[in-house]
Each structure stands twice: as C-alpha cells, then as structure tokens.
C-alpha cells in the first residue's frame, strides 16, 4: 500500500504544479479577452518565453536558483504583451476591428515571437554549446522534504502560493482601489468609461502587460514541471485555451479555477486511465482538456462563469424553506 500511495502523492504534486502554471496563463488570456475582446494566440509564445527565460538565465547564463528568475520571466513576457498592444492591438481597437481580425493579428504576433525564441535558442546553442531543443529542469527543483520515499518539491507550494497571491492581488485591486473601479467600468462599458474621463488605453495597456506577464510566470512555473522544446508554447496553449474557456472568459478567477480544473483532471484522469487500461493510453493525455472543455461548453455555453451561481444558491435555499 505504501508503494502505491507514493506515486499517487507524487502525481498529485506534479499535477498541482502544472495546474498552477496553467491557471496563471489562462487567467492572462481571460484578462486580455475581457478588456480588449482579443483572444490572444500569442499566449503560446509568451508562455514559451517565460520557460526559456528561466532556462537560459538559470542553466546557461547566471546560475543560482531557478526561482530568482521568475520575476524576470514575469516582466519580460509582460513587455511582450505591451509591445503587442502598442504595435498591433491598439490600432485595431481604434479602428473597431472585428473579433476574427483581432484574433488573427495575434497569431501573426505569435509566429514572430516563436521565430525569435528559435533564433535565441540557436544563438544559445552556437555560443554556449548547450542543448536548447530539449530542456529538462524538473530535476533541478529545490527539495523541501520527503513524503515516504518521494521528494517534496518546492514548485508545488510556490505555484499554489503564486496563484493565491495573484487572486488576492486582483481581488484587492479590483475592489479596493480607484484603478480597479475604472477597470471594471471599462470592461462593462468602454465608451461610458471614456465619457467619465477614464483613460481606457491605460486599462488596456495594464491588461496586456499583466496578461503577458502572467503567461510568462506560468511558463516559468511550467519549466520546473514539464520538459520542453521551443514548441512548448504550442503544446500548452490548448489546455490554456481550454482552461480560459471553461472559466468563462469573463472572470479572472474563472480562468484561475479553470486552470486547476483542466490541469488536475488532465494529469489525474490520464494516470487513472493508465492504471486501468494500461500504459499505452497515456499518449492521449492532450485530448482530455479538450473533452472537458467540450463537455463544459455543451452544458454551459458560456463557461463556468456564465452559470448564475447566486441563482442556483438562492434556489436551493428557497427549496429548503
């Protein structure tokens, strides 16, 4: 029994770390979508840049501790978001471009960022003679202790702490500050917000910075949970999209919850299936988030945030009465 409990604990640890990264990135997608109406394909490369920033600074350039470079990943991908807004998205929003044009323009941005990652990876390989095409940092994590015979890695705690901290930050920002009120008005009704003298562009700029930065931080977390290639963004973008959509696209907390729902079920369901049906099934892991997303949308076409929780709650209360 002890032998069996070990792997399950370890799988759960990995699943939690993975979900934290996913949740941050998904909330970033939601943040950008709810403010600017842009469904950001470039999140793939922003996540991958976060991944590569941690790898290159920790493993190649400076060394030390991988967590030291999380803020760098945060700021770097945030700057990528700001560039995307200032160079592309801003002008399209001013013109009132439709959803599909907004979405496709970020695909163009993604291809460019993706090219830059590869150029950077080639440069690292040429200059420092390191393999940048398959990165494994999962073994480099700080070990806090042991559960049975299995190491308890720091990333599990840190990933949850970052997500909770981020949720708390947004809660305080949106509910306790003037900027937060301005933000919420802009989301509800941008033209009314401008009439009231709110500079909506500042709000959009903030959303793009934070959206990109959260993708970068998500990528930094993922770098200690999964192994990666330059196409890592392409692999994680689908569960990120799924998490954001399941969360409902209109609530940052929805994105965070969606990330945990998708991430945990992806890792846990596939392990359960693997133990029941045999190891061959494990390759189908990427399909699980897609199935969960499809099932959620068919039940609730606007995701989890589209459900009127208050109504369900009050109905159950009234039925009790």
């Amino acid at each position, binding site marked *: 029994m002890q032998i069996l409990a070990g792997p399950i604990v370890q799988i759960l640890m990995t699943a939690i770390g993975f979900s934290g990264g996913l949740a941050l990135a998904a909330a970033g997608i939601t943040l950008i*979508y709810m403010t600017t109406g842009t*469904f950001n394909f470039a999140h793939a490369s922003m996540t991958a840049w976060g991944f590569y920033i941690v790898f290159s600074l920790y493993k190649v350039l400076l060394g030390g501790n991988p967590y030291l470079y999380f803020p760098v990943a945060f700021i770097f991908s945030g700057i990528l978001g700001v560039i995307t807004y200032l*160079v*592309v998205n801003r*002008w*399209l929003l001013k*013109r009132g*471009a439709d*959803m*599909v*044009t907004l*979405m*496709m*323009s970020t*695909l*163009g*941005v*993604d*291809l*460019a960022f*993706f*090219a*830059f990652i*590869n*150029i950077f990876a*080639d440069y690292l390989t040429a200059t420092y003679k390191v393999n940048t095409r398959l990165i494994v940092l999962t073994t480099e994590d700080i070990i806090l202790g042991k559960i049975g015979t299995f190491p308890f890695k720091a990333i599990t705690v840190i990933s949850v702490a970052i997500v909770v901290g981020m949720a708390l930050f947004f809660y305080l920002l949106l509910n306790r500050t003037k900027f937060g009120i301005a933000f919420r008005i802009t989301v509800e009704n941008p033209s009314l917000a401008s009439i009231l003298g709110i500079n909506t562009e500042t709000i959009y700029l903030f959303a793009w910075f934070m959206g990109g930065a959260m993708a970068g931080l998500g990528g930094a977390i993922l770098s200690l949970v999964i192994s990666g290639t330059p196409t890592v963004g*392409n692999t994680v973008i*689908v569960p990120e*999209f*799924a998490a954001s*959509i399941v969360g409902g*696209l209109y609530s940052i907390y929805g994105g965070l919850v969606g990330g945990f729902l998708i991430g945990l079920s992806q890792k846990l369901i596939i392990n359960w299936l693997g133990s029941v049906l045999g190891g061959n099934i494990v*390759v*189908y892991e*990427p*399909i699980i988030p*897609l*199935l969960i*997303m*499809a099932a959620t*949308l*068919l039940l609730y*076409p*606007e*995701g989890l945030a589209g459900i009127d929780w208050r109504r369900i709650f009050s109905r159950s209360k009234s039925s009790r009465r």
Partner: protein
Amino acid sequence: MMEGILEYLYNPLVLSILVNMAVFLIVTLSLNLETGFAGIPQFGRVLAVIAGAIGAGAIAGRMMAAMMGLPAGIEYVGDQNFVIVGELNKALESSPLLSIGALILSLAVAAVMGGIMGYLASYPAIRLKEAYLGITLLAFGDALQIVGMYYDPLAGGTAGIVVPDVFRFVGTGEIRFLSSTLIILGIAILVYLYVQRLARSPFGRALKAMRDNELAAKVYGKDIVSLRAKTLIIGGALAGMGGALWTLYTGSFKALTYNRLTWTFWPWAFMMLGGTGNNLGIVLGTLVFSTVRSLIYAYKTELTAFIPINPNWLEYLLIGVIIIAIALFRPQGILPEKPELPLSKKKIESIRASLAKGD
C-alpha cells in the same frame, strides 16, 4: 513551344509551387466558404483535412485491398503495409481504368469523411458563439490529429503508411509528378468554379445575409441551423478532398504532417491576404504565399549565406509580419469582397433595357 513549356514545368521548384498552390487553394476556398461567406470562425480546418487524408490513405486503400482479395485488416497499416501497397500499385499500373477508378474512389471517400467531420462540427457551431466556437473547432482538429498519431490501427500512427499510387495511369517517374500536379490543378480549378457558382447562388446569398445580420436573415425565413450545417458539410467535404490530394500526391500518410499550423493557420493567412469573401482573392493570396514558401524552401542553403539566422525562422517571421501588416493596413485583403451579381452584367443590362421598353 509545347516542349519548351514541358521542360520548364519539369523544374522541381515550379512543380512544388504548382502543387502547393493547388492543394492549398482547395483548402483555402473551403475555409473561405465557411468563414468568408457564412461567418463561422473555422479555426479547426485541419479536422476535415486530416479526415480526408485518412479517408484516402487508410480507408480507400483498405477498400481497394479488400476488393483485390489482399489483407485489409490491421495488416494493411502494419508491417505488411509496404507489401500490400506494392501489390496494389502493380494492379493499378496494369490497368489505367482501374487507376482512374481508384483516384475517384479515394476522393469520394475523402469527401464523405470530410463531410462527416463537417456534420460533427455543426453540433457546436449552432450552439456556441465567436471565440467559444473558434476554440472548440480548433480543439476538435487537434484531437483528431492526436488520435491519428497514436492510434496505430487507424493509419499507422507516428510511422505513417504508404498509400496506393492512384496516379499510376499517367506513368511513373518524372512524368508522374508532372501529370499528377496538373490533374490536381485541374481539380482545384473545378473546385473554384463550384465554389464561385455556389457563392452566386441563392444559397450563397443566404449565407452572406446570415453572416451580415443573423436576425434579419431569420426574419426573412432563412433556417440558420440548416444553413450552417450545410455550409460545414460542404466545406468539410472540399477540405477533405484537399487533404486527400496531398496524401495521394506524396504517396504517404503521416498524421504529423497534418498539423494545426500548416492546415488551419496557413489557409487563414492565405485567405486574409487575398481577401476574405472573395474567391478570386483567395486564388491570388494562395498563389503569392505558396510561391514565397516554396522559394524560401528551395533556396534555404543559399539564404543561409546572407542572413545570420536559420531560414526556417525567416519563414515564420515573414508570414507573421505579413499577417500583422494585413490586419493593420488592409484588413479587407488585396482583392476586397465585392457584391456578387446573380446574373452576368450584360444579362442584367438587357433585362433592365427590356423592362424600360415595356414601360
């Protein structure tokens, strides 16, 4: 003169441009039907393409093997795949009629498979909106690719399979690639004519009405659900044929080839460059892009001397920048959509003249 042209066509670069252009033209036209005319954000184009490729490569091939009395079960995609397809090729080579029949069978199976995928996609398409729909369709496409990659009994998994050469009736060797390219180009032209006719038909006008104002189209008695479902089925069937032709041309099927970037996003870029909602623009956009891609691919080694980066990334950079530039500066594309007249201009003029006389 004719020989001069033939000599020129034997150039592998020209062939590559032509065949890329023809296959992607079919796929992009199908995308334009769904996105340009019907307004469905089809981010899962690869779904029908890969279904068509599997239909032509694995299903039609098995049907042929079964007809010939060769093993058509799991052996067909397994170790014996090479042997069985070799036997099939021998039979196809002996009879041109059989070979043409095989081509038609493959395309028909591919169209049916693509159509089925379109029908499946219509289930979310009538319930979800905009981004939700686009990402759901994208997810469908990815899911089928993953199944194709890892479920070996379907089409050989990661190793892939070889596919019966249905172009055997035009010969083997160099002439085979040239003639099959021309045949694929011919099919692409037929698809263009069909889609163009469809766009000008009452059905096409109903699609545009639905795209521009769903409520108004409903008020005028258009059945939105059936319009969307029909569009997705037709579009899926056409895209399936596109995927099938690529498999048949290259003579092999590998699920890895049919990825989201190449078969969903590239057609989107082609469509945006040419002009969303304008079939002639699609032809232009596809021609420009496939020429650029083929040129970069062909001159990779020469390019490396001039630029400090790997030309692979140059391709991504270039296409990314083009997409951004189109979105920013010419969102309607090179050839913007024009109102399509249901009859030719001359005919309308003559009707107008006769009406004026009648008064």
